[in-house]
């Protein structure tokens, strides 16, 4: 395994200024410029360094537990047709794909000489994954988390605290992922020299979308190898992933971006429905705008104020999407669907009962759209099961009677 070598040949990759088509870039105040510039200048060189790669790969293998299995879900396939494979990111250490990126970024932070780590988190998976690598590397860790999310993802808050992180509630706006990200960025402005910001999704200013996508690209790199072993063909017909900011989708799509026969399906959170006023489906409800330093598709008012999204899933409750995904949407390379809270819950219960796998609410959104694909018997689908459902047990128990 090695980190994807990007030659900028793909129309779906970031160009040298971090643009994907007209999306991306780095729209940041001067107070952040030295930090972001340092990353822009050094990230590729550091990632390409053999000693970095060796350390990264070893941690992915021995600490994260990679490669994660690619599991043929037979009963799910019987129900929806085709051959449905689950990419089991839920089996990673800490329970989600987020750890792939935090392992990479903590090694990067060490090489940049940083002493203090900050992060934002929605569902708490990225916060836990960050707190974990900080414990491993003996670094100070501060995680910003919306107050609403602190309540609805209590098990992850406890884990972060046990891991030694300070969890700071974000109390502005809708008190969710967007607001936690605002606070993390403000912290970085106030601590420009000693602090590295481990952003958890494929969003934010350049180079974050590209850097996070590269660290997560191990997902699709493994899928190709595993499919080849299992089916004799490394190219599936579909890759399906949920998308909030879009890190697991970026990783699952990465090595298929330039394989036009592979249909890339991104599933956004539709909350109570895209017409309900309570949704987080940015490609349906958004327009071009700026959030957290990137130009992308953004939910906003006519006056350009960012609107508060809603989803039962804290990890998808974000009013924008990463710029790579905005470009996949606009160029037509990706197909964007959305799943409501109820569809996601139904899918979570169904996957649990058919396969004995309790998925995270986020990942359940991806599973929920299998019913819309109208699969033919010979078709091969890979669903990125980005995380496990332990953190969501309260929501599942509350809905046990309904499903």
């Amino acid at each position, binding site marked *: 395994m090695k980190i994807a070598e990007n030659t900028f040949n793909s129309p779906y990759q970031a160009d040298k200024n971090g643009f994907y088509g007209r999306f991306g870039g*780095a729209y940041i105040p001067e107070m952040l410029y030295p930090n972001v510039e340092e990353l822009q200048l050094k990230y590729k060189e550091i990632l390409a360094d053999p000693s970095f790669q060796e350390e990264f790969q070893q941690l992915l293998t021995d600490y994260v537990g990679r490669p994660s299995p690619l599991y043929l879900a037979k009963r799910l396939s019987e129900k929806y047709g085709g051959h449905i494979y689950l990419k089991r990111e839920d089996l990673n250490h800490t329970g989600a794909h987020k750890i792939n990126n935090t392992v990479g970024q903590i090694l990067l932070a060490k090489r940049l000489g940083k002493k203090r780590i900050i992060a934002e988190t929605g569902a708490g998976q990225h916060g836990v994954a960050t707190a974990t690598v900080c414990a491993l590397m003996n670094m100070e860790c501060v995680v910003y988390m919306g107050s609403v999310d602190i309540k609805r993802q209590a098990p992850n808050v406890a884990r972060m605290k046990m891991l030694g992180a300070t969890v700071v509630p974000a109390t502005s706006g809708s008190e969710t992922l967007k607001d936690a990200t605002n606070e993390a960025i403000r912290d970085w402005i106030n601590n420009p020299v000693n602090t590295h910001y481990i952003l958890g999704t494929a969003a934010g200013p350049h180079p974050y979308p590209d850097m996070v996508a590269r660290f997560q690209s191990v997902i699709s790199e493994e899928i190709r190898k595993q499919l080849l072993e299992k089916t004799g063909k490394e190219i599936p017909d579909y890759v399906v992933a949920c998308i909030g900011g879009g890190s697991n989708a970026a990783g699952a799509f990465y090595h298929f971006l330039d394989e036009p026969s592979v249909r890339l399906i991104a599933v956004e959170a539709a909350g109570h429905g895209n017409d309900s006023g309570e949704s987080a489906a940015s490609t349906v409800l958004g327009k071009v705008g700026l959030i957290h330093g990137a130009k992308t598709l953004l939910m906003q008012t006519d006056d350009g104020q960012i609107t508060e999204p809603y989803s039962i899933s804290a990890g998808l409750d974000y009013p924008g999407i990463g710029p790579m995904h905005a470009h996949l949407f606009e160029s037509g390379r990706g197909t964007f669907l959305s799943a409501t809270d109820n569809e996601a819950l139904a899918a979570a219960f169904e996957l649990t009962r058919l396969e004995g796998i309790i998925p995270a609410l986020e990942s359940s959104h991806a599973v929920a759209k299998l019913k819309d694909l109208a699969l033919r018997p010979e078709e091969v689908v890979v669903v990125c099961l980005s995380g496990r459902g332990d953190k969501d047990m309260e929501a599942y128990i509350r809905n046990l009677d309904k499903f």
Partner: protein
Amino acid sequence: MNRIDQLFAQKKQNVLNVYCTAGFPTLESTLPVMQALQSAGADLIELGMPFSDPLADGPVIQDSSTQALKNGMTLARLFEQLKDFRSSIQLPVILMGYLNPILQMGVENFCRQCAAVGVDGLILPELPLPEYEKEYQAIFEKYGLYLIFLVTPETSEARLRRLDAASKGFLYAVSSSSTTGKDKDMGDQTAYFRKLQALHLKNPVLIGFGIKDKGTFTTACTYSNGAIIGTAFIKAIANANDALPATVKSFIQGIIA
């Protein structure tokens, strides 16, 4: 001649720039606050366009922005409020804000309205220099709008020179690397202020962030052409209600008298 240039042609020391959020504390206080600032002796007005997610601002200015939006402030409404402001206000006026509302209005449309009402300059901290030069500069110049750039203690000398070359009107020197309203000790920044002085920049320099009273204003002015007060002023007028002009007057007098 741009009013900002006129100001610095006449006054090279102790220039006081005051930040206020449009539509705060009440929707209709935009103009009364500006008029009160003029009568009280401010030299420049930096009018904040409220935004839902002001990343570079600390809690006080964030809250003023949130309050202004709750009051019903929008960019379109701001231009309505500013329609005749030049009949009563002669001070140079700069609009400060985040890019997204401007992108929604359309950059050229925004600039046209700025010019029509008599705005002199803009502070847009998220606008990258290369993009400004490529896509915005010609439009801003067409409408006579000065773009003022920020520099910080972490800005390299080479970049400082580039930003000074691009900046028009003055250069905004952020006193310490922070969001607005952080109470960092300015005493630690004297080396940075001296460095700025020694560079003999093209533009006048105003120091902002952490200027909250006469003492900090005087210190900043020792090293620059003047200073910018934001958070402390917002705090002062937050609960002024009917006594707004008197509150503004006593605040400004407390700084410059």
